[in-house]
């Protein structure tokens, strides 16, 4: 089904209003290959914003926002067809439930995408997942036997390389035992619009820009500054050190 696959140059979310009816000040434009972080406490409007994208809002959701694809309003028929298919989501509470081997499953997914060579595609995805996972897994292991970190890695690799949706939302999966910087590289290369809802400083600062939410609306759009880039480098170094200590503890080495 080629109709399931969609490429976009840009997605624009026009300004709506917050929960009190005050107008948002700016439109937000998303392009493929860039990472945007969403920040704000629970209830500040992140989910609402994502739902607007997913349902291709046309001033008919509580926020009164409108979504444009490639700078144009999709016609009613296209809108109806695309609703709920624009956004691929990965979150903390997702699990694999299917009783299938990893390779079998990913090959099936590739077949459903009508990939030219499902076998080779499956190999690529599994290789990428193993690069992200702290502990590699065998391609023939059952999906349900993967650890949390392995599951998350496979989900990210599959979403980046095989998913239909042009927009990929990653919801708070920072604690999943996944190599964050590699995951981000893979996602940027995937040429999708990547949106990360996170409280993790490294992930938030890794994004090209941050949308700050308050009372159901976008309050601010912050581009990463020079100083923040330096801070990010420092935080990454600290994380690396921390991970090093953890792995030595794991191996049972003394830490003098």
């Amino acid at each position, binding site marked *: *089904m080629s109709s399931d696959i969609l490429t976009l140059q840009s997605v624009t979310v026009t300004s709506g209003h917050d929960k009190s009816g005050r107008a948002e000040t700016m439109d937000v434009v998303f392009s493929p290959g860039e990472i945007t972080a969403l920040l704000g406490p629970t209830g500040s409007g992140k989910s609402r914003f994502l*739902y607007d994208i997913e*349902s291709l809002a046309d001033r008919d*959701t509580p926020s009164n926002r409108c979504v444009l694809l490639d700078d144009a309003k999709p016609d009613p028929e296209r809108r*109806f067809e695309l*609703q*709920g298919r624009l956004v*691929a*989501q*990965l*979150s903390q*509470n*997702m*699990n*694999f*439930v*299917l*009783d*299938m081997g990893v390779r079998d*499953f*990913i090959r*099936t*997914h590739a077949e*459903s*995408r009508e990939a030219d060579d499902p076998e080779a595609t499956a190999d690529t995805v599994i290789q990428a997942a193993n690069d992200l996972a702290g502990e590699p897994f065998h391609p023939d292991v059952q999906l349900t036997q993967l650890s949390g970190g392995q*599951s998350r890695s*496979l*989900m990210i690799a*599959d*979403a980046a390389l*095989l*998913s*239909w*949706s042009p927009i990929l939302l990653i919801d708070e999966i920072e604690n999943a035992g996944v190599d964050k910087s590699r995951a981000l590289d893979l996602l940027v290369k995937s040429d999708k619009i990547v949106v990360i809802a996170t409280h993790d400083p490294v992930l938030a600062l890794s994004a090209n820009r941050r949308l700050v939410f308050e009372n159901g609306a976008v309050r601010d759009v912050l581009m990463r500054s020079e100083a923040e880039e330096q801070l990010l480098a420092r935080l990454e170094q600290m994380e690396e050190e921390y991970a090093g200590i953890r792995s030595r503890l794991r191996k049972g080495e003394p830490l003098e």
Partner: protein
Amino acid sequence: MRLVTVAGPPSCGKTSILTKACAELMRQGVSCAVVKFDCLQTRDSDIYAAAGIPATAVLSGGLCPDHFFATNLEEAFAWAKDAGAECCVIETAGLCNRCSPHLRGVLGLCVIDNLMGIEAPKKIGPMLRMADLVLVTKGDLVSQAEREVYRHRIRQMNSKAIIRHINGLTGQGCRDLATILAMAPSIEKVTDMRLRFPMPAAVCSYCLSETRIGSRYQKGNVKKVTFGGAHEQ
């Protein structure tokens, strides 16, 4: 009155999403009424009532739930009309997987969840194959990849239906469902309408409360099969 038939396996989330979608319609000023057909017991009419939606539940008890549904459709329609509903939703649980409640010319929905296993779309048969709209629940618990593969399997079984993910707990997608319900064809009466798929035949002694096992107790429309394969030389 607009009429919608909704089918799907037990506990897949039919009542949750319909409660939210009908409540949304009521908010928009479209009056709804729900008839729940079930087998043994149900408290679903309380759930609808708590949400302020006129509802009635009926139980097939000792009868085939599929035949019971077809037999009482006119009366169900009349009840909803008397209740002053502009949109009547008929929710059927417990239909056997050989069956489909959908009628020609009436909006037919099938609800299934993402936790049912990859072969589920094949197994639940006509209620999915004959549906205009397939709603998939519990997608928040599984990976994106599984959702996409599952969707593909649904598509293989039903090439025409609209397939939507919907969340009965958070209500995500229920607003869109309300929009779709409000566009269901409006019909005068169900009398003389046709089922999209015939009901299974059932006239044997077990229909008449026979409980004993054995050929000698079996009369009427009985189908005997030949087992084999496993022990053949």
